[in-house]
């Protein structure tokens, strides 16, 4: 072999070696992160099937876009609020509004109360509109409940529940921090702040920053509370949970969570009664699972990702 050819062969061999070493070193730097960098909630998505006491039946499918508010009227009709309209089931009557409601309630005579971020729109049966403005400049209304005397409105922006008379006017403030009277104030890290009425007519409000449900008299004096923290099925996880809740006729709590989407029932003392829907029954990342209960114990879950009101009945 000629010297020149030999030299070229050596040169090519050395270059191949250098290139190979470079590729090896380059790839070895690009290893995957270790186990300590794994973030998995799979363990918490699994629910013991014996805890699931409810079964899903045919959902309500509104023709509205961007559904965001749910209410069960005293007459059993289901109202769903979405983009520019409210729809009623089972007759599917549709009533126009402007905008997307953030919450909704319906009273005995069919009057609809809509939270529209910073004000309440009251729609009579003839769909005539009255407006109550929420106090404060940063109102973000997230829940409404109506009883004979008062209308309670949860305002996540101001971290207060406003108690209006049925005629409107200046509301009473509930939830202002008052250590002397045992009011620790509402800790609302994100706009999920729900209220409902107990079987005795008293106000229940979720305090999501504490994973707590708190009971108040109509004048804002606290009565009782319970809390459950934890990723396991018995507790509430992450910040701002439960994001929504509704009271059953027997005073038990139907709760819905975000982050780890699941719907459960807790007894009056906060202990877990059963699971309605496990995390694997929802799309990953869904938020805004508003819940409502009718007199027959059927549970309705507003699922914004599927744009449906999913319905659950207790297993026979």
């Amino acid at each position, binding site marked *: 072999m000629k010297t020149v050819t030999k030299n070229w062969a050596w040169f090519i061999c050395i270059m191949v070696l250098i290139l190979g070493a470079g590729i090896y070193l380059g790839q070895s730097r690009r290893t995957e992160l270790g186990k300590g*960098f794994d*973030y998995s909630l799979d363990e918490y998505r699994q629910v013991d099937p014996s805890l699931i006491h409810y079964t899903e039946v045919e959902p309500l499918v509104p023709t509205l876009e961007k559904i965001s508010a749910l209410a069960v009227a005293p007459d059993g009709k289901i109202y769903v609020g979405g983009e520019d309209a409210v729809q009623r089931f089972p007759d599917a009557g549709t009533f126009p509004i402007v905008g997307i409601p953030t919450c909704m309630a319906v009273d005995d005579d069919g009057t609809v109360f809509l939270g529209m971020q910073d004000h309440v729109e009251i729609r009579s049966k003839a769909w005539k509109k009255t407006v109550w403005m929420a106090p404060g400049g940063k109102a973000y209304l997230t829940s409404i409940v109506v009883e004979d005397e008062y209308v309670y409105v949860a305002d996540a922006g101001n971290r207060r529940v406003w108690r209006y008379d049925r005629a409107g006017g200046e509301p009473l403030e509930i939830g202002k921090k008052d250590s002397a009277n045992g009011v620790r104030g509402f800790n609302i890290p994100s706009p999920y702040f729900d209220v409902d009425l107990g079987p005795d007519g008293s106000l229940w409000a979720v305090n999501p*920053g*504490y994973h707590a449900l708190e009971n108040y008299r109509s004048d804002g004096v606290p009565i009782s509370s319970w809390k459950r923290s934890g990723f396991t099925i018995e507790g509430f996880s992450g*910040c701002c949970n439960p994001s929504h809740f509704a009271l059953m006729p027997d005073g038990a709590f139907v709760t819905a969570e975000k982050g780890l989407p699941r719907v459960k029932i807790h007894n009056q003392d906060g202990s877990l009664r059963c699971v309605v829907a496990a995390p694997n029954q929802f799309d990953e990342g869904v938020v805004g699972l508003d819940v409502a209960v009718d007199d027959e114990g059927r549970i309705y879950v507003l699922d914004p990702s599927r744009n449906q009101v999913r319905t659950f009945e207790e297993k026979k």
Partner: protein
Amino acid sequence: MKPKEKRDRRDFVRGASAVLIGGAVLSAARNRSPRLVWQIDPEKCTQCGRCATHCVLAPSAVKCFHSYSICGYCDLCGGYLRPDAKSRNTGAENQLCPTAAIKRTYIEEPYFQYTIDEDLCIGCGICAEGCDVFGNGSMYLQVKHDLCVNCNECAIAHACPSDAFERVPASEPYLLKSDRERRIS
């Protein structure tokens, strides 16, 4: 001087002038086009972890950013605490960040402030994932431009599975969530 020589010189001067003028025009045009740098769109980022492993720098030029205007200052911060944390304190076993780059400071009951120690952050995005799932998404990843060497072919952009890397003008090198919110509002 002979006429041919004269013509040659004229041609040379013409050619040289054309090259000079063309160069000046090209240079001016190049200066006018904005310089671009790499940045992560937080809306597209899926916190896959490749920012930590694929940057040519070690540790990566990608760091966690924290938007205080979005943060809820939660005691039970999903970006700071492990999902299975036994208690809500600064114990290493409770912290989600593998490099302890997030500092937790008590403000008042029940609020805590979370700050990022850039020297410790490697841009793995695990805190951003936890904050996204359980919090408000106030923690997110961005390329730090005092560290980034602005490679023409960014190795992370090449490996990014969600196409979250994009070129942005160097005059506005960050895609901040808080800025976006301000623009929307």
